[in-house]
């Protein structure tokens, strides 16, 4: 038993870190340190650099264009990106749709879509959730009716993240309305330029435009864009959701936030001295640091277990990672807001284009921190709410 990284892994970490230091554009890094999402252009630019290096899809098998890394390497790579901070490979492409195509897709689909995914020539988005189907995903109603060599899709998706950037969407649709809930669902790939698709922004409480509603009105989708068998799309969905093995822990991202927090708490005054010198504030930070260290070890354990598992079933330990990972991130965002004090409350423009609102009314480091706190409340809701995770644990782990 040895929890330490091997010499090779330590060398690999250095290689990644050096690459990021050399290649990551300063503007991207600075934007992310401020807590903002990178722009579309920044994401694309970075993904292409990773792709040129062969690192665009850490988890993909070599034959599909992946780097052939061990789980430990993948973990190190992602952690280094998060704590740089640098954009991660676009999840819709690399961790969601790509693996489904690799697992269930035809050779033609692989050839057509995978290289463009790697290079972010196509930006994908996810069409799963619907207004009536949140935690109860299988309750979806969007219909696809086969007519000749096309499906005709009608319905509505929601919470579609960054659909405004997307070239393609992967969809769960109901192809057999008479089948039981989780049967009769199919997995379709749809070009966002197809007539009949309307994207409507959803503005979140902090004012950001991250998610969308997507409407489908007689949208024609070629049958060749069906992944896997008709009415077997739930297998793809389960595979995709179960694929999320330790990503939600986001240990590197939280470490970066804690570093940032310590900087801000050094700048921000409280009681005539830097906030970081207040025992109660320090206590709160320390408690997060400890939880994060334990979470990091838990991730390592999951990696070690995963490395030996042969089946593709989701590991129930991912529920622990989801719950703790999001709790830690939310606490970080709350402390960052608190550290900034009254200056956190300036209503900045979360897209960061600047509407003049925030000019010279607060220190730079304080801007937008309340918005991030508000926005990050989503973390315990999405990706299977933390309540759903507790249900899963009670049933899958504890047999209750």
């Amino acid at each position: 038993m040895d929890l330490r990284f091997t010499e090779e892994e330590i060398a690999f970490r250095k290689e990644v870190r050096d690459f990021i230091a050399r290649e990551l554009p300063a503007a991207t890094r600075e934007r992310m340190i401020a807590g903002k999402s990178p722009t579309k252009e920044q994401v694309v630019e970075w993904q292409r650099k990773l792709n040129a290096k062969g690192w665009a899809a850490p988890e993909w098998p070599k034959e599909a264009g992946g780097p052939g890394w061990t789980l430990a390497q993948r973990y190190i790579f992602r952690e280094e990106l998060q704590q740089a901070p640098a954009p991660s490979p676009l999840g819709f492409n690399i961790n969601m749709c790509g693996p489904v195509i690799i697992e269930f897709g035809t050779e033609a689909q692989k050839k057509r879509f995978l290289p463009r995914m790697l290079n972010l020539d196509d930006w994908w988005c996810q069409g799963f959730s619907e207004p009536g189907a949140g935690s109860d995903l299988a309750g979806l109603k969007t219909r696809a009716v086969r007519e000749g060599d096309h499906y005709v899709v009608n319905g509505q998706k929601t919470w579609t993240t960054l659909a405004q950037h997307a070239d393609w969407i992967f969809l769960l649709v109901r192809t057999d309305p008479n089948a039981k809930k989780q049967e009769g669902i199919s997995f379709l790939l749809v070009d966002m330029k197809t007539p009949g698709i309307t994207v409507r922004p959803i503005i979140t409480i902090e004012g950001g435009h991250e998610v969308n509603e997507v409407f489908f009105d007689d949208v024609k989708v070629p049958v060749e864009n069906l992944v896997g068998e008709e009415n077997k799309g739930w297998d793809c969905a389960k595979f995709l959701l179960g694929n999320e093995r330790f990503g939600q822990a986001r240990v590197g991202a939280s470490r970066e936030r804690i570093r940032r927090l310590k900087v801000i708490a050094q700048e921000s005054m409280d009681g005539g001295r830097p906030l970081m010198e207040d025992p109660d504030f320090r206590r709160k930070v320390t408690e997060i640091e400890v939880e994060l260290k334990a979470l990091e070890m838990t991730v390592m354990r999951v990696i070690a277990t995963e490395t030996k598992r042969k089946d593709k079933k989701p590991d129930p330990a991912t529920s622990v990672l989801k719950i703790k990972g999001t709790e830690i991130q939310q606490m970080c965002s709350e402390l960052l807001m608190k550290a900034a004090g009254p200056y956190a409350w300036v209503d900045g423009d979360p897209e960061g284009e600047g509407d003049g609102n925030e000019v010279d009314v607060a220190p730079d480091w304080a801007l937008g921190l309340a918005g991030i706190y508000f926005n990050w409340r989503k973390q315990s809701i999405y990706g299977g709410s933390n309540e759903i995770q507790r249900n899963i644990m009670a049933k899958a782990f504890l047999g209750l």
Partner: protein
Amino acid sequence: MDFDLSEEQRLLQDSVAKLLADKYGFEQRKAYMKTKEGWSTEVWSQMAELGLLGLPFAEDEGGFGGGAVETLLVAEQLGRAIALEPWLTTVVIGGSFLRNGASAELRGALVPKIAAGELKLAFAQVERQSRYDLFDVLTSAKKDGSGYVLNGRKGYVVHGDSAEKLIVTARTAGGQRDLKGIGVFLVDANAPGVQRRGYRTVDGQRAAEVELSDVRAEAVLGNPENGLPLVDQVVDEAIAALAGEAVGAMQVAHDMTVDYMKTRQQFGRPIGSFQALQHRAADMLVALEQARSMSLFAAMAVAERDPAERRKSMAAVKVQVGRSARFVGQQSIQLHGGIAMTMEYACGHYFKRLTVNDAMFGDADHYVRYLSDTGGLVQAA
């Protein structure tokens, strides 16, 4: 002990509730936010008509002679609507400064205007380094002839962009964090040397960053050499009003959440039928009721004659209300799920307002420390 409202108090409560029911639907509020002022001048006029703007002033000075209970009642209703008007800054804070720190002559000149809705006040207190310490003041006030000239920079001046007059804390003597040597000054917001940059705050209100360059004060409020006790008194009254506002907002957030739980279906049943969520809603109710109790305590304790005891009581109010507001706010979002994360849905706006409400004049953590450092509420024995 008597928790019943008098006939007059009930009338007051009902009239505010009716005004807000008519004028403060969620869509109406959004429209007000988009105006130049960021709030409704029409509602403001109607508040004047109902007497809400002269509420805390003596009747013979043009007010309505309301006390802490009346303030609480109005604040709770405004909290229910998460109203945007400058009532707290003008009537509660400004009113308290005038009642406790102004000459009868000055009150005679200003109170009728305030009551009529013609004069709005803002409190310029926060500085970049001060965080929540009322006595941490770098802005300077230099005696010049019979008056004072102010220099410095104030931040998060709530409604500082629409106010006609600013109430400014500034240092007449001593160092940055000395308790003595702080004065309170009335400043014409359009006087030469006043520069204001208005902005929207995350809870939908308006505020301004204010720079003062050789600005001549119009008047002094209280003792210019030792104005901190006055500031403390005023802020404690503001805390009592903020507690009422928070309780009103929490009540609506909680009601909204429970209603949603009854209608939202998942897995073929209303989510309110899931016990884990029921218990969360019950815990929210416990938090709300504890906060409501403290808002009532606040309305009483703010009249306490011993300033040290009053400050400690108001610190306790801040702690309980802040803790409750955080829990109720966060959980109202969580129990709704995604829908409450959207700008189009009211719940998130209550959450944001509750977040800022907690931190105004110091958050719960700040007051835990204050109360700890001053010996707490219970004597050792």
